[in-house]
């Protein structure tokens, strides 16, 4: 099949959407999976040559959007499309089990329509290079994900969260538009390639900063991340996984795309991205340690991982500035691989959270617990995801973090300034690793282990195969990357080639990568061996069950446990100013001899949101209130406004002002 025909199948799959509305309830979901498979299959066929490094140009001659629509596929876009396809297929299958909980109350038609559109737009965003078309598709992506977030539209706060997302995305688009107009004004080009001309003659910093802000809004770099926790916590879990796992990566794709055209100022840009990445990583994971909402915690962990990706990109760019091909290669390969890894891990974790929500109708960690007894498979999968996202061997998360660490250690051989930068970067990255271990042991322990904290958690049931199989699918890829990282890293390092244009290809030694795989395999084998020994010894010596050690006190076991709040408490004490804790509680007064029951409520606000987003908004709305006087509901007044307007216009026309 010619690639143009395949492109037509890809674009034409949108025509299959209306059929969703005529199908029976059970069929809608599986039909959507079919559509997703068509999109994924056709786009994968398109990108296969590009994954090997070939740049393809495909003109869709009959489809004119300001000139013929042209697909341009290089290894970078191919890589991102691959990621999108894997995550979307998993999420589509998962949604068939997950949405059953809602079938009575919500109509899934709009949801499935938006789902197909989201998939299609994410694929197309990576394919087109014409900026105008790019923005249209970018808009489709934002709009369809807005509809997906808004699925449970009657729940309190959902509309607000979705609108917050909607508005912030559009601020991002405005910034991108400004960058585009600037580019168009200077060069007259309407294509990403025009950046090449622009960056050759003009300063690279300003335009890059504007693009970074616009794309960073999607990617969730601080302080542009505030929409992410809200929309992720209200969206259905497969959507939250998809958004966190791949959609925000489109922002990173944009940044990387612009980065391929940068001509100079690499050091400044690299340091800037590194710095933002470090802050994002630390801030995200720090806030995730105190969240009480399971999905919000995962959303903050997404912000952390965006930070790690940023660190990788920063290291790569600095390596390019220093003209050190090895560091550049390690940084960019690490960042790209981390994008891939996170696109596998985060949907897995969100699917786990979705299964929990499906069985217990709760996402408050303080009401869950003990799910391991009734949901062992979900628990096991979530633990694998948690270990992988903490970057622990033998899973894939470690491999990408290892590459970024290696890049950092390579930078230590540079001059004094770089050493000091490295010191802070190393410090922060290690701290991020430790904090994520804290955060994810807390979450896993509180949600799945111990005693159930509510009746719903006690009565939870294991979810259906439609929800479990996609998770296994993701876990298998993760374990394969963890144990056999070498071929994958080799492929990814060639994919990073467009980013390394001015730097010659480094001799990429993969011996240490192979050793990681071997050591991970050894770890698994030794663990199994050790467990078999244990099994044998324990069977010989006997085993029995008894109550947990309670120091002589046997009260209500589920109330005695450590809770998520108590687990996060010492972290809260350490980083108090950043945690934004709000507490409402009335102290017992001295005169109150028999204290009555009193409520205590605590809340953790995002400090950046409180300090940087809310004050200007409040100021703006306070200022706008003044104009409310005009709108007093009196018909005569409105007629008067129209009259005044006509008179003014007529006068101005008379005196030739307009």
């Amino acid at each position, binding site marked *: 099949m010619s690639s143009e025909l395949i492109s037509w199948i890809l674009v034409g799959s949108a025509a299959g959407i209306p059929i969703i509305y005529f199908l029976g309830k059970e069929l809608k979901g599986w039909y959507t999976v079919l559509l997703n498979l068509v999109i994924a299959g056709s786009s994968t066929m398109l990108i296969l040559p590009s994954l090997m490094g070939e740049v393809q140009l495909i003109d869709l001659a009959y489809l004119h959007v300001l000139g013929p629509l042209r697909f341009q596929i290089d290894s970078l876009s191919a890589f991102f499309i691959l990621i999108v396809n894997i995550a979307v297929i998993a999420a589509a299958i998962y949604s068939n089990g997950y949405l059953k909980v809602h079938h009575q109350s919500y109509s899934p038609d709009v949801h499935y329509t938006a789902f197909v559109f989201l998939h299609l737009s994410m694929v197309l965003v990576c394919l087109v290079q014409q900026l105008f078309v790019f923005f249209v598709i970018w808009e489709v992506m934002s709009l369809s994900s807005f509809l997906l977030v808004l699925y449970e539209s009657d729940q309190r706060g959902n509309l607000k969260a979705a609108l917050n997302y909607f508005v912030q995305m559009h601020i991002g688009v405005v910034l991108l538009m400004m960058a585009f107009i600037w580019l168009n004004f200077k060069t007259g080009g309407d294509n990403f390639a025009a950046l090449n001309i622009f960056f050759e003659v003009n300063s690279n910093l300003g335009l890059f900063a504007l693009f970074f802000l616009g794309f960073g809004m999607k990617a969730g770099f601080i302080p542009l991340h505030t929409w992410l926790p809200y929309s992720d916590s209200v969206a259905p879990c497969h959507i939250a996984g998809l958004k966190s796992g791949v959609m925000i990566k489109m922002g990173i794709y944009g940044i990387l795309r612009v980065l391929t055209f940068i001509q100079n100022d690499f050091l400044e840009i690299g340091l800037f991205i590194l710095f933002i990445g470090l802050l994002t990583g630390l801030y995200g994971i720090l806030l995730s340690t105190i969240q009480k909402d399971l999905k919000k915690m995962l959303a903050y962990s997404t912000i952390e991982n965006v930070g790690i990706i940023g660190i990788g990109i920063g290291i790569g760019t600095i390596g390019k500035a220093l003209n050190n091909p090895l560091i550049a290669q390690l940084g960019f390969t690490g960042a790209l691989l981390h994008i891939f890894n996170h696109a596998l891990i985060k949907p897995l974790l969100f699917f786990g959270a979705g299964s929990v929500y499906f069985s217990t109708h709760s996402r408050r960690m303080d009401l869950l617990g003990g799910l391991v007894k009734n949901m062992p498979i979900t628990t096991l999968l979530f*633990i694998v995801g948690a270990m992988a996202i903490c970057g*622990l061997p033998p899973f894939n998360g470690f491999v990408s973090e290892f590459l970024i660490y290696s890049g950092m250690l390579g930078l230590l051989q540079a001059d004094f300034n770089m050493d000091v930068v490295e010191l802070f970067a190393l410090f922060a990255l290690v701290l991020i690793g430790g904090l994520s*271990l804290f955060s994810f*042991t807390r979450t896993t322990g509180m949600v799945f*282990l111990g005693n159930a904290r509510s009746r719903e958690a006690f009565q939870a049931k294991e979810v259906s195969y439609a929800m479990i199989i996609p998770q296994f699918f993701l876990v298998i890829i993760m374990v394969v990357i963890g144990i056999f990282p070498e071929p994958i890293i080799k492929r990814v390092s060639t994919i990073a080639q467009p980013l390394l244009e001015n730097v010659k290809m480094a001799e990429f030694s993969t011996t240490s990568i192979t050793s990681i795989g071997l050591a991970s395999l*050894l770890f698994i084998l030794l663990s199994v061996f050790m467990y078999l020994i244990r099994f044998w010894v324990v069977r010989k010596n006997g085993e029995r069950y*008894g109550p947990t050690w309670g120091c002589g006190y046997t009260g209500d076991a589920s109330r005695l446990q450590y809770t998520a709040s108590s687990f996060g408490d010492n972290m809260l004490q350490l980083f108090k100013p950043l945690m934004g804790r709000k507490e409402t509680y009335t102290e017992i007064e001295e005169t109150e001899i028999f204290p009555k029951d009193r409520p205590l409520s605590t809340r953790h606000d995002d400090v950046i949101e409180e300090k940087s987003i809310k004050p200007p908004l409040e100021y703006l709305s306070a200022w706008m209130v003044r104009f409310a006087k005009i709108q007093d509901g009196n018909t005569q007044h409105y007629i008067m406004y129209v009259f005044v307007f006509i008179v003014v216009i007529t006068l101005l026309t008379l005196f030739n002002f307009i």
Partner: protein
Amino acid sequence: MYSLLLILLGSVFFVGIVNRTKAIASGRKGSGILQPMYDILRLFQKETVYSNTSSFIFKVAPSIYFVSVLLSVFFIPFGKYPAILAFDGDFIFFAYLIGTGKFMMILSALDTGSAFEGMGANREALYSMLVEPAFFILMGSFAMLTGYTSFSEIYYWLHFSSDFGWLLGILAGFILIQISMVENSRIPIDDPKTHLELTMVHEVMILDNSGFDLGVILYTTSLRFALFGMLICNFIINGSLTFAVTMGGTEIDFTALISLGIFLGVQVLFAIVVGLLESFRARERMKKNPQFIFGLSALSIVIFFGILIWMHKFNY
């Protein structure tokens, strides 16, 4: 290979020496040096009791914990004899591998649904998070100094003999001792001999473990001590250490023998130091622990800048 055997050997008597030192320091006679090992062997023959609340995680965690520490021993060299597994950046793998073991132990503590064990798990997670930067910056500094990023090569090329290098060596040794105290939950972070659950860190996490599992966990503690002992010992035994005597026209190389002697000496000395520290130092207040641990990172930053000065990188 040598290092694995030596560390296994060291782990047999390490905790015994610590206990004996503490006994003598407090005026008691104390038990034999191999008593902790006998205790562990006895535990291996006992019945295992699980908590009703616990699940499969509780059963697999101790084994994984042990394997994570055992495998991390594979990365440690012995002087100029490289480790079994050595590759660029292996100390990162080493640290994260130990993290995997900790992750499983924290989960297994939470698996019992006990308030005490949740508390211990929480503290373990916090302290291990805080201590990690110190280790990484220390190793990063050595990597900068030697130009290599694998344990075996770093230790082969590490010399503290010239200029004021020995000062940095002493400081690095001090930091490593303190890191090992934190990692093994000993004084001043945690008192393994305390009898109050509320003040425990590591001990309270393993309250519900029994039989084979408890034995494995206790042995892992010894193994970790011996491992850190080897890390410190390697400051003295590096690639340049050679000791050969010419006797009757043939040169006899005593390097291996001398290295072995230094290793045993350092292990015993390290154990005695730990014992003395624990005898004459009280446990810090829980609230002070984070400050203390973070202080170690500050010290390792001192080493970092010390090495920058040493390499004359300041006058660029």
